[in-house]
C-alpha cells in the first residue's frame, strides 16, 4: 500500500501566556485520511493549539507545516488547502446564508458552485433560512452555517474546534457521518471535541491534552 501524504506536521510547539505554559514540545503528524481528536478538560489548551494550527495565534516556539509549506495565515496556498471552523468566523451583515456559501464556492473557483451550495445547504438543513441575514440566525443555525463554509470549498485539511457545539442530537449524528465520509475520501482532520460519540466514530487517533505524556 502506498504511503499516504503527510498533510500536517507539527514539531516542538510551545505556547505560554506569561509564566503559564499551555503546551510545550507538542509534536504531531497527520496524514491524508487520518482524523485526530484532541480531548481534555476545559482549559487544557485544545482551542489554543487549534488557533496556532490555523494561524490565528502564534506559538512561542516550534514549527507547523501544511503539505510541506510553513504555516502562514496570510498565504493563499494555505488558505486554499485548510478549511477551518473555529469561533472567530465573521459574516457579512447584508449577505444571506446562501449568498455567503455561493461567494466562498466561487472565490475558490468551484466549477459548479450552484449545485455544490444547494447540496451543502440541504445537508446542514438551512434551506428554509437560505434568504435570512446572519444576524437573525439562532446560535445553532450560525454553527451550521460555519460548518457549511468548510464543506462548500475545496480542502485537504479540516481543522475544527468543538464542531458539535450547539448542534442537536440529529445534527451531531449527521456531522459524525459527514466527517467519516470526508476522512474516507482522503481528507486529513484535526478536531477538538467533548462529544465521546463523535470522537469514537470519527477519530483514528485521540490526543489527550493536559495530561503528562
Amino acid at each position, binding site marked *: 500500500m502506498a504511503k499516504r501524504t503527510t498533510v500536517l506536521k507539527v514539531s516542538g510547539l510551545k505556547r505560554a501566556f506569561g509564566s503559564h505554559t499551555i503546551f510545550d514540545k507538542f509534536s504531531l503528524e497527520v496524514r491524508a485520511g487520518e482524523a485526530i481528536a484532541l480531548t481534555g478538560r476545559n482549559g487544557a489548551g485544545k482551542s489554543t493549539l487549534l488557533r496556532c494550527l490555523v494561524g490565528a495565534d502564534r506559538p512561542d516556539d516550534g514549527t507547523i507545516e501544511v503539505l510541506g509549506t510553513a504555516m502562514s495565515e496570510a498565504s493563499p496556498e494555505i488558505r486554499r488547502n485548510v478549511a477551518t471552523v473555529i469561533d472567530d468566523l465573521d459574516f457579512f451583515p*447584508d*449577505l444571506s446564508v446562501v449568498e455567503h456559501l455561493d461567494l466562498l464556492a466561487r472565490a475558490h473557483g468551484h466549477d459548479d458552485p450552484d449545485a455544490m451550495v444547494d447540496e451543502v445547504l440541504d445537508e446542514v438543513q438551512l434551506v428554509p433560512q437560505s434568504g435570512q441575514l446572519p444576524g437573525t440566525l439562532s446560535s445553532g443555525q450560525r454553527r451550521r452555517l460555519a460548518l457549511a463554509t468548510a464543506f462548500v470549498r475545496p480542502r485537504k485539511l479540516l481543522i475544527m474546534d468543538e464542531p458539535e457545539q450547539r448542534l442537536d442530537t440529529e445534527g451531531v449524528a449527521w456531522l459524525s457521518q459527514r466527517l467519516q465520509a470526508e476522512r474516507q475520501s482522503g481528507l486529513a482532520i484535526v478536531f477538538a471535541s467533548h462529544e465521546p460519540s463523535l470522537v469514537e466514530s470519527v477519530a483514528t487517533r485521540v490526543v489527550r491534552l493536559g495530561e503528562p505524556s
Partner: protein
Amino acid sequence: MSTYEGSEDDAFEPYPAHHDAGFEGDEEPTRLVVPPAAELKDLIRHWRKGRATRNLWEAFSDAYIAVIAALMIGGALVNVVIRAQRVVSECTSVSCLSARTVLPWAALVLSVALALAVSRLFGPVLASAAEGFWLLDTPVNRPRLLGPRLMAALVIAVVVGALVGAAIAALTGGSGLVIVVWSIATALAATSAVSCAAAQQGAERHRLTQAATYLFGVLGVVALVVVIGIASDWFSLPITAGADAEIGFGVIAVSTVLLVVSLVLAVRRLGSIRRTRLTSGGALVRGISGAFFALDFGLARDIVVERRAVAVGSVKPRRGKGLGRQALVWREWQRLLRFPQPLFMLAVTLVVPYACDALGMSTLSPVVAALALFGATIPLLGGLRVLTRTGGLQRCLPFTLSQLKISAITVPAALVAVWAVLTVPAYLGFGDGAAEHTVDEALLMAIATAAAGLLGAIRWVQAKGPDFSAPMISTPSGAFPPGLMTNVFRGFDLCLIGTAPMLFGFSPLWSLAICAIAALILLNSMDAEAIRARQVEQQRELERAKRQREAAASAAKQKKR
C-alpha cells in the same frame, strides 16, 4: 427582607406599603401598593450615589487636560466661525448674498432629516435592559417613568438644533437677528421631528417617520442645489434680510404647533410602547457608548449596521457571478444595490465642492469636499470592514490580504472615480470670486480630493480597536492603551494631509504623491499586528541561530580537548 442598607440618619423609605405583605397563616393578604415611578427612580439614584467614589469636582480635577483641551478646541472653533464670517462678508453680489441666505434653510431641513433618522434608530424613547427587566416588568406607571426619557431626547434635539442653526447662520455672515431666528427655528424643527417620531413610536408605526426622513433628506439636497444655482446665476431668488427673518419666524410658528400636537400624542402613547422596543434602543445605546468609551468608532458603526440588518431580517437571494476575485467584486456590487442608501449619500456630497466654489470658499473646497467624501464613502466600504476586522473570513478565502482589500474596494473606488470626474467643473471656477484653474489642474485637483477622501475612509474602516492587553502608556489622565487617542483622528488625518498641499496653493501633484504613498501602506498585506509578529519571528530565528552557533562552538571545543 430588603437588601437596602441605608445609613441610620437616612430618611428614605424604599418600600412604603407592601413591605409587610405576607401570606402566612389565615391572614387576609395585604393589598400590594404599586410604588410611584418617581420613588423607584429616587431609590435607584440613591443606590448609585452611594457607590460613587468621586464627586463631580474631583472628576473634573482629574480630567483637567480634557477640560482645557475642550476649551481650546471650542475657542478655535469660535475663531474659525469669526474668520469665515469675515471671508464670506467679502462676497457682496446679489447672487452670492441670496445663495448664502438659503444655506440656513438647507441646514434646517437636513437637521430635521438627521433628527428623524436618529430617533427611528434609537426609539427615540428608550430604556436600559436593567430597567426593562426590573422596572418595566412591574405595574409601575410607565408614562411617568418614560416621560423624562422623552424630555431628554427633546432637550438634546433643542441643543443640537440650536447650535447647528446658529453656526450655519453665523458662518454665512448673517446678522444677529438672523442668527437668533434661524437658531430657534432649527432647534424647534428638530425637536418637533423627534416628538413626531416619539408619537409614531407610541402607535407602533414607523413608516411615516421613515418616509419623512427621506423626504427631508431630499429637500436638504435640493436646498443645497438651489444655493449653487443662485450663486452661479442659473436662476435668482430675490430675498432681503428682512424677508429671510420673516421666513424664519414662519418656520418657528409651524414647528411650535407641530411640536405641541405631536408632544401631546407622544405623551399619551408613552404607556403603550412595547418593552422590547424600549430596551432594544437601550441596548443599542449601551453597545455604542461602550464602543465610544474605547474610542472604537468602527465598532460603534458595526453595531448600528448589524441592527439595521436584523431589522431587515431576510432578503431575496441573488446568484453570484464570476470565479475567484471577480466573485468578490460582483458581490460588493450586489450588496450595494441591495442597500443603495450610501449611493444617495455619495450623490449628496457631489454638491459640496460646487457649494464651496459658489460661496467664494474655493480655497477650502478640496479639504471640505474630501472630508464630506470621507464620510460618504465609509458606508460603501462595509465589505472591507468585515474582511479586515477579524481573521475568520480572510482564512476562508484563497487570496492575500492585499488582494482581498483591492477586491473589496474596487466598486467603491470606481464610484469615487465617477465622483471625481463629476466634480471637475467645481474646480474650474464658476461662482463669484472663485479661483479659476485650467482643465488639467482642475482634473488633478478633483482626483487628488477624491483619493484623499477614499483613502481616509479606507484607513478609518480598517482601524482596529485599542489593544488593552498591550503595555499601557502613562499619561496625566491615567494609563492609556496605545492607539486609543490616535483612533479619534484616524481617517480625518489622511483627508487633511492629502489635501493640505492644495490648501496652501501647491500643485495637486503633491497631494497625489502623498495619496499614492498612503495607498501603498494601506493596501498592502501587512497590518501593524502582522509587522510586529514578523519582527518577533525574526528575533526568534536570530536567537535560534545564535544558540546553534554556540552549541556548535562548544562541541568543537570539547572535541579539541
